[in-house]
Structures are given as structure tokens and as C-alpha cells.
């Protein structure tokens, strides 16, 4: 299958700090890819480059067979890139329902009334129905993370970027999240998931991509990657013998 997302020699610096350093990466259509890396490795910056929140210094980004390097964030969203933020960015004074509605109305480009059913469905899926009329700013952190997911799904993405949505969950909550993401994946959405909760990641993704200092450290089958000496050393902090 053709890749849905392709990054070619992408670079991004903040001042003297090279956050993403000549990184290339491809995600096949229908694939679920996990991204691992220590704090500060450049994972979230990578997402911001893909979504257009940040512009690349060098390199090209192709989405669904189209060069999107120069497109602004809203245009990339409308083409089918949905994302959640690691630090939730709710529309705080809008209701939870209206947050999801904004995603459906603009990301999916539909008339407002046509979106209502889908929005309610997503509130049920993310267990936010009872909070529908509350201001999103009043939600707890975990609820905000679920809202991030609901709002991103409302944009009807072809590619969904998940940025650490499993942190802080109990085992049963984590299991429910895994099932939700699996269902989204099964419906044909390609997924790229940044996550420190490795068992959750491995339950969903078919391939891992490990970043360190903005560069690819390892890539491939999840178990093989996790067992590779360089990942053990860098990511787990264990000295390779």
C-alpha cells in the first residue's frame, strides 16, 4: 500500500537546539505505528511538524500522496490529519459537546446539524455524555484527554496522531482506551501513537519507531525493537552489555 504519511529528511531547530535532525519516516495507509523515545527526544515536535503547528526548517512532508509542507494546520486537518495534544487544549469556556461539534463542523467540513449524531456517538464512546453541557475547562485532566480524543475523531481523520493519551489511567481505563483505539484502527484510520505506556502501545501498533535526539534510533517489529540493545540502553536506561 502507498504511504499515507511520508517525511523526507525533515529538520527543525529551536535556536541552536536541533530538535528534529534529518528524520525520514513513512506510515502505510491503514497502519498503526508507535513512537517511543525519551523525554525531549522530539516526539511532540514531530507531531507539530506533521500537523502544521510548526513549520519544518528543511525537508518535505507528504500526506495522502500530496505535498503538505507549506499548508497551514487547518488545511492539513481538513485533508484528514487529526491529532490530540499531550497537554490538552480544550476550548475551555465552550461546552464539552461544542468542543466536539467544532471538530466535526470544521475538520470534517459539515453543516452543524449534520454533525449532531456523530458528536453524541463520540461522547458515548469517550464516556463524556454526562459532561456534555459542562464547560470543557471544568473537566479533570483525564476527562480532558478523552475530550481530546473525541474532538480529534470528530474531524473524521484518515490519520490520527495520539500524543500520550494513556498516561495516568488505571488498568481497566487503559484497557478500555486500548479497545477504543483498536476499534478506530479497525475502521480504517491510520494511527501514529506516542506513548510511554509500552504495553498499551504494543497492544495496538504493528510497528515501533524509536527517536532519540531528533533522529531515528530503531524501527520495526515492536518486540524486536524493544529488545534491541540500543533501545534498551537509551530508552530503558539499561547499559547494553
Amino acid at each position, binding site marked *: 500500500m502507498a504511504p499515507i504519511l511520508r517525511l523526507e529528511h525533515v529538520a527543525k531547530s529551536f535556536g541552536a537546539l536541533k530538535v528534529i535532525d534529518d528524520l525520514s519516516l513513512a506510515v502505510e495507509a491503514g497502519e498503526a505505528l508507535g513512537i517511543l523515545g525519551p523525554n525531549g527526544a522530539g516526539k511532540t515536535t514531530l507531531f507539530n511538524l506533521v*500537523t*502544521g*503547528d510548526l513549520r519544518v526548517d528543511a525537508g518535505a512532508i507528504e500526506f495522502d500522496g500530496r505535498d503538505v509542507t507549506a499548508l*497551514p*494546520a*487547518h*488545511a492539513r*486537518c*481538513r485533508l484528514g490529519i487529526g*491529532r490530540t*495534544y499531550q497537554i490538552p*487544549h*480544550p*476550548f*475551555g*469556556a*465552550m*461546552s464539552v*459537546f*461544542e468542543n466536539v*461539534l*467544532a*471538530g466535526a*463542523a*470544521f*475538520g*470534517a*467540513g459539515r*453543516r*452543524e446539524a449534520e454533525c*449532531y*449524531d456523530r458528536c*453524541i*456517538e463520540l*461522547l*458515548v*464512546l469517550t464516556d463524556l*455524555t454526562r459532561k*456534555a*453541557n459542562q464547560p470543557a475547562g471544568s473537566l479533570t485532566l483525564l476527562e480532558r484527554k478523552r475530550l481530546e480524543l473525541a*474532538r*480529534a*475523531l*470528530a*474531524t473524521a481523520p484518515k490519520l490520527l496522531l495520539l500524543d500520550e493519551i494513556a498516561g495516568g489511567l488505571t488498568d481497566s481505563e487503559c484497557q478500555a482506551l486500548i479497545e477504543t483505539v483498536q*476499534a*478506530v484502527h*479497525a*475502521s480504517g484510520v491510520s494511527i501514529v501513537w506516542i506513548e510511554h505506556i509500552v504495553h498499551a502501545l504494543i497492544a495496538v501498533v504493528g510497528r515501533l519507531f524509536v527517536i532519540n535526539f531528533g533522529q531515528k534510533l530503531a524501527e520495526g517489529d515492536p518486540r524486536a525493537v524493544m529488545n534491541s540493545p540500543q533501545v534498551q540502553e537509551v530508552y530503558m536506561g539499561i547499559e547494553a552489555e
Partner: protein
Amino acid sequence: MTAAAQIPAYRIERSTRASRLALVGFVVAVVALLSLPLWDGEDDLGSIVEICYMLALAQCWNLLAGYAGLVSVGQQAFVGIGGYALFAFTILLGVPPIPAVVLAGIAAAVLAFPTALIVFRLRGAYFAIGTWVVAEVFRGVMGQIRALGTGTGMSLPVAISRAVAESRAGREIVLYYTGLAIGIGTVLMVFFWLRSRQGLALTAIRDSETAAGSVGVNNERTKLAVYLIAALATGMIGALIYLEKLRISPDAAFDVIDWTADVIFIVVIGGIGSIEGPFLGALVFFGLRYLLADYGAWYMILLGATAVVIMLRAPRGLWGLLADRFDIQLFPVHRRVRLR
């Protein structure tokens, strides 16, 4: 999603009990204002026109700063352009005064477009200063135009004020209804905008620009639309102001205190980022001015002190305080889910 989740029966409500009551109040107020000249004579008409245009300016500034994040301190540019455009259209081109008010708004919006190309490159405080500088440039340019009286300004010829209505009383009535139309029209425009799908985008931008972009909202285009529409309304208001004042000069027409600082006071005191806020702010502003009219400089000092206290105690203004405590909205721009 596979296995479509069970959707409970639901209904989306827009109006609330408070908003239905407010609608009745709004209609009663509009009817009372429309019939005012019949039962209250002409003494208060001028004050009500002033309240109308300050409220309309406040609604425009609130749309800019409270929703689109465009903290402009240069809206006096469009008041001045509107006022001068009125003089130019009526004196130089012979357009009748009331159509000239509308044309003045369009002129302001047209000039707002190149202005936006410049100031939209700036962000935050730089944007604010940029808008002020642009307003000063317009003031300077208007002061150079000989046909419009250069720096000393000019008066509207009697023939043109006669074209509004023959008698002074008749003129006041015409200006009163024009002022009402602009005041009520601006409020309704802001209301229907905020209630619409585009209003959802604007409210999203208010709450988080980053997230708005990430869900497909075209932030730049939405902001440009707000800027141009605010210029259109502000230009019409400026024209109306100078049709009433009958005399214009660059220093008065592009005055930052009268046309922007006072307006910011109204919005910030009343409650920025809500449609109800400017109403409450206008009430406080005109109430204070009425009570303190005889105290000269103390008026400005108390106005400033009020602003400081409210900003410290209620950062979202008086309306924010009320809305938090009682969970009310008078203008039903939100959507509520009712599960059945």
C-alpha cells in the same frame, strides 16, 4: 467507527428560560425605544443615540479583542474614516446623508483590507501598537486634504444637514432612528454571527487558537472577516457621530480616548468575550458619567479606579461574575444537549 456506539435519544436546545425572558425584555425595550419620540418628546434622544453608538462600538471591539484575539487600540481609525467619508460623500459627491452613512461604512471596510495586510503580520502587543500607529497615519493623512479642511477640520454645510430633515426636531428624529438601527443592527449582527457555525469557529479561536487550527478552523480568514466587519460597522458609527456633531477635525475624529479607550473600558468592565458584557459595561460607563458629571477630573480618576478594581476582582468583567454564579445566558448562542 465500527459497531456504531448506541446513541441515546437526545435533543439540542439553543434557548434557555433566561434567554426566553431576555427575548421578551429585548422586544419590549426595542418597542419602547422605537416609540420613545411619541411619549418622551425629544429631550433624551441625543443621549440614547450616544448610548447606541458606544454600545455598537463596544460590541465591535468585543468581537475583535474578546473573540478573535485582535486587541486593537486603533479602532478610532475607522470612526475617523467613517466621519470623513461622510463629509466627502455628501460635500464632494453630493450623496444624500443617510445613504452616505452606509457608504462611509463600506469605505472604512475597504480601507481596512490593506490595513489588515500590514497589522496582521504583528502579534499581541505589537498588533495593538501597530493598529494605533495606523490610526495616527490616517489622522495625519486626513489633516493634509485641503478639500476636507486640513488640520483645522470643517463644518457640514447647512444645506446637507437640511437634507436630513428640514427642521431641527425632524433631524433629531431621523438621527435617532438611524442610531437605533445601527445599535440594534450591530447587536443582532454579533448575535447571529456568534450563534452560527462561524460563531462556533470564532468562539473556538477565543478559547484556544492552537486547538482551533488543529480542528480545521481557518483562524486567519475568520480574524480577517471580524476585522473587516468591525471596520464596516465602526465606519458607519463614525459617520453617524459626525452627522450629529456637524463638525469634524482630525484630532477629534481620530481620538484614541473617545473612540477606543472608553470602548475598551465598557467591554472590559462589562465582561470581555460575551455578548452580554458590553451591555453591562455601557450601563456602568454611562451611569458613572451621569453621577460624576459635575466632578471634572475626579470623573476620570474614578473611572480608572473602577476599571482597576473590576479587573482585579473579576477578570472576566461583571458579566463573567454573574454568569459564573447563576449559569445564565441572555443571548442564546450556546448549544445544550438534552438526553431523553
